[in-house]
């Protein structure tokens, strides 16, 4: 009897796939944020919840790097020996998920991917209550394609025991490209990393978590929306406040708010920005937070509804509009994120439904901007009356001060639709004049008309008109 040549095929994973391939899907900074995510997930496992104003108080992570090494150490609870299976295995089995905690780890790949992204040698030291051990990854282990076991070294000597429960990951034998970014390009890389932690970890840091990078404490940089406390003099509820939407769908709670971060720009500011980039960073656009971590920051593309379904494309005139969407769920797999956790899964049904509300909210403010176009200085007075509030403060306002109405179509929930001030209709006898001239020429006329006085191009235009009008009369 001849042997069936179509017996079985080998589908064993190849180690180089994890070491060389998976690491290409993620940016270095994002890989480091994955390591920070693990710190926060550690806190959640220890505390079992993230409710309250400062649930992460007392916890911190410190990142250090130079041209030869990288390390991250935290006091966030360490890895209990009972969890070593999914801490160190490449990938996480479904039954091992943190089903009752709002973590962001889904695939069990973040820590390993980050390590392989950075270098070829690693020592992970961890302490959790009674458990204290070290796991080492060596270049030789990476080369051995059949060996998937990692050596574990128990730590029992008192002098070697860390004071607090936590984990330290030390990576050596850095890849060439990484070593130059940590070394010769240190200033730019540190700037990029710190900036991303400031924005993507703003919500976690505002809740008490501390992060240090090479000894420097990172301060959060949250998006804040203008909220006017008192209603206007006429006693109506017209005021600059954000649009708010609040719902829960399939166990995922969603809170959305969009509004102004600053006064709307004047026509001159818009023209300047178009001629020459004035701002190297903009607060405008949507920030999306999943379980306290920003997965998208200040997006101004169709991904977040700009230029779709009646919302205009992003343009400099909308520089003041910013929005935040927060998704919270104990089952991280229900969150609309990509595998890198730094992007949105645009095809997620949950996200597509929420995006409708994002567009609804955005239209309120693009409409306001269009109505006040050319009257930036007049609309400024309304916006200046308010103060910028972070998301948590807006949540408090929404529950204490504002009346949220039920949404009766599409995705159900509650929403607050602000009543924004409208410009007085211009008397029909008035018409707007606008024209452009060479800057040098405007300067010449300005000097002639105003001398040393400060004056914008529009003032120069108005002065010209008034002067000729007087002559003409």
């Amino acid at each position, binding site marked *: 009897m001849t042997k069936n040549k179509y017996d079985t095929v080998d589908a064993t994973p190849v180690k180089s796939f994890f070491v060389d391939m998976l690491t290409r899907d993620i940016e270095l900074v994002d890989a480091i944020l994955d390591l920070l995510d693990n710190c926060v997930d550690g806190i959640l496992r220890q505390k079992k919840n993230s409710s309250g104003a400062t649930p992460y108080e007392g916890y911190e992570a410190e990142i250090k790097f130079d041209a030869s090494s990288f390390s991250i150490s935290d006091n966030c609870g360490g890895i209990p020996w009972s969890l070593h299976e999914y801490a160190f295995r490449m990938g996480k089995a479904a039954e091992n998920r943190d089903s009752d905690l709002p973590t962001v780890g889904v695939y069990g790949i973040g820590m390993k991917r980050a390590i392989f992204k950075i270098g070829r040698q690693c020592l992970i030291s961890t302490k959790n209550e009674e458990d204290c051990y070290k796991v080492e990854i060596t270049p030789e282990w990476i080369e051995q394609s059949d060996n998937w076991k990692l050596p574990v070294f128990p730590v029992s000597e008192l002098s070697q025991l860390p004071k607090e429960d936590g984990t330290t990951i030390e990576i050596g034998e850095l890849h060439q490209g990484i070593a130059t970014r940590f070394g010769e390009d240190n*200033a730019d890389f540190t700037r990029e990393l710190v900036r991303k932690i400031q924005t993507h970890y703003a919500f976690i840091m505002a809740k008490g978590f501390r992060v240090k990078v090479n000894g420097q404490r990172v301060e959060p940089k949250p998006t804040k929306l203008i909220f006017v406390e008192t209603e206007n003099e006429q006693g109506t509820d017209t005021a600059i406040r954000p649009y708010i939407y609040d719902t829960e769908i399939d166990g995922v709670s969603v809170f959305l708010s969009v509004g102004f971060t600053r006064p709307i720009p004047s026509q001159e500011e818009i023209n300047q920005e178009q001629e020459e980039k004035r701002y190297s960073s903009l607060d405008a656009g949507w920030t999306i937070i999943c379980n306290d971590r920003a997965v998208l920051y200040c997006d101004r593309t169709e991904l977040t509804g700009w230029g779709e379904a009646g919302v205009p494309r992003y343009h400099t005139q909308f520089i003041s509009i910013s929005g935040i969407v927060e998704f919270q769920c104990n089952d991280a797999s229900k969150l609309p994120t990509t595998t890198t956790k730094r992007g949105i899964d645009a095809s997620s049904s949950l996200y597509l439904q929420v995006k409708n509300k994002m567009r609804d909210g955005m239209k309120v403010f693009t409409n306001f901007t269009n109505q006040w176009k050319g009257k930036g200085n007049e609309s400024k007075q309304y916006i200046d009356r308010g103060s910028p509030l972070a998301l948590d403060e807006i949540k408090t306002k929404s529950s204490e001060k504002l009346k949220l109405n039920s949404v009766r179509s599409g995705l159900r929930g509650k929403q607050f639709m602000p009543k924004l001030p409208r410009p007085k209709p211009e008397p029909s006898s008035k018409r707007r004049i606008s024209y452009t001239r060479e800057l040098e020429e405007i300067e010449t006329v300005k000097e002639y008309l105003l001398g040393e006085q400060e004056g914008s191009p529009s003032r120069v235009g108005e002065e010209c008109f008034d002067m000729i009008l007087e002559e003409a009369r």
Partner: protein
Amino acid sequence: MKHPPYHLRVNKAIDRFLLMEILDILKRHCDLSDYTYYGFGGPLLEDCRLIHNRCPEIKIVSIEKNEQTLKRQKFHRFSKTLGLVHTDFASFLANFSSNGREIFWLDYTDLKFGHFEDFMSVLGKVSEESVVKITVRAEPPEKEWEEFQREYDQVLPSSAKRTAIKRPVLFAKLLQEMIHIASQQALPASGESVFQLLDSSYYSDQTQMASITGIVCREREVSEIKHWFQGWQFANLTWQEPREIDVPILSTKERLHLEKYMPTKSKTGRSLSRALGYRIDDKGPRHIEKLRQYEEFYQYYPYFARVSI
């Protein structure tokens, strides 16, 4: 069309001479006839003229967008080989492709993010062994820190504090760090070429300016280039703090008197102070510092004189 009297600014004149010194050192190792100087000559073409006098083998191009200034430049043209290009710098850069090696001086009178973008763009376009110098206004800006952050976030160091835009010295240091970051973004160390710093100064002829010069070179040639400049007393090869240029205004009679004592051994300013026998600044330490600066830069100090024609 207002032009500051560039040609009468002593500290700026010293900054120009520092560029000349860099070219002198470069001349020992490279053929300067391969080089073209690109600058914003201004109405009197001061920098172009200086380079032409010192290194006539360098081709010179001045970029000017104002038509009247261009006419004035044509009037002051000192050599038929001088190229006068009538365009704005952004359009010039967009169409620029390297042909030989370059010396760029981005000599701005103000500060805006666009200047950092120009600088990064130049670094990405020039050939190796090209010299790039950028000068920007370094007066602490009259704006809120948050606004400053929004404008310069892409090149702002993570350690920058709001106090850095309040005090002149701190602001000059901050600008150097920002230029450093911009250079790393334009030419990351993982690439073929890097920007090696040569000189970094700040000075004030009424308005404080920061001026930074470096050379674009292959990563593996950095140590050799450092070696070329190591002996130069004004070299800053490792992004140390920028040097202040603040020479005193002295009369020709005073300068001729002090020449007898130059060069001094200690360069502390004290021997010149004794030689003068009076203070040139009400504040003692400032008086000594100004004379120390004079000791350091006297060879580059220009003579200005009234001439009747």
